[in-house]
């Protein structure tokens, strides 16, 4: 089942709010997070402890696992990458759940 294209922006916006809430990024608003910039290092400048907290929150919220930094390197490459990663895994999960 594919999410309608127009929902992608809305999904990304909700994801940004989740990141801000979970990581308590007090001085940052959703508009400050650039969709194409990296979340770690340069860009948003998150660190390894932030990654651990974010992984727990994403699993809780979307049921999508990011087991290690190797997977995280792709998933956290940018806001666009993270949204794409979650949506893809959610779809795969739903399909496999439906197939039993």
């Amino acid at each position, binding site marked *: 089942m594919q999410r309608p294209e127009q929902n992608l922006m809305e999904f990304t916006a909700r994801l940004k709010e989740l990141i801000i809430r979970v990581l308590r990024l007090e001085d940052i608003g959703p508009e400050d997070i650039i969709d194409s910039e990296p979340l770690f290092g340069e860009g948003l400048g998150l*660190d*390894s*402890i932030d*990654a*651990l*907290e974010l*992984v*727990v929150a994403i699993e809780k919220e979307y049921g999508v*696992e*990011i*087991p*290690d*930094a*190797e*997977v*995280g390197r792709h998933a956290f490459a940018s806001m666009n990458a993270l949204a794409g990663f979650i949506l893809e895994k959610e779809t795969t999960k739903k399909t496999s759940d439906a197939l039993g």
Partner: protein
Amino acid sequence: MRWVETTTTVRFNEVDQWGIAWHGHYFAWFELARMKVLEKFSLLPEEFTALGFIAPVVSAHCEFKKNALTNDLITIRAHVLKPQTASLTFRFEILRQTDEALLARGETVQVLQRLDGTMIYKLSGMLKTRMESMVRYFWP
């Protein structure tokens, strides 16, 4: 919540020219208690390595409350926090044995990496089993 304790004596080479323990040594004393905890749960550095992991410290913090002086007998105690993420947080306290005065309070956070340096975000296997049994000991 429980503590695991160990003791030591403040040595002459650990104090500064004012006779007060140099602040950096508190972290070495924390290490005595950490090793005592890790030994109890088969998670000593070499045992971590045998499981295919290392656990580097990414944050260390200490508050100094009272001075430790040469020849003071001190108790160092440690416990592990219930983890919210795939990490290992130790809390420490150092007490003077004669009057149980709190000398320092500290915390370290360790993350977990495979031997190739890849950080892991989720615990699994024997590492998870041993870390969970360690947490249960402190939070029965």
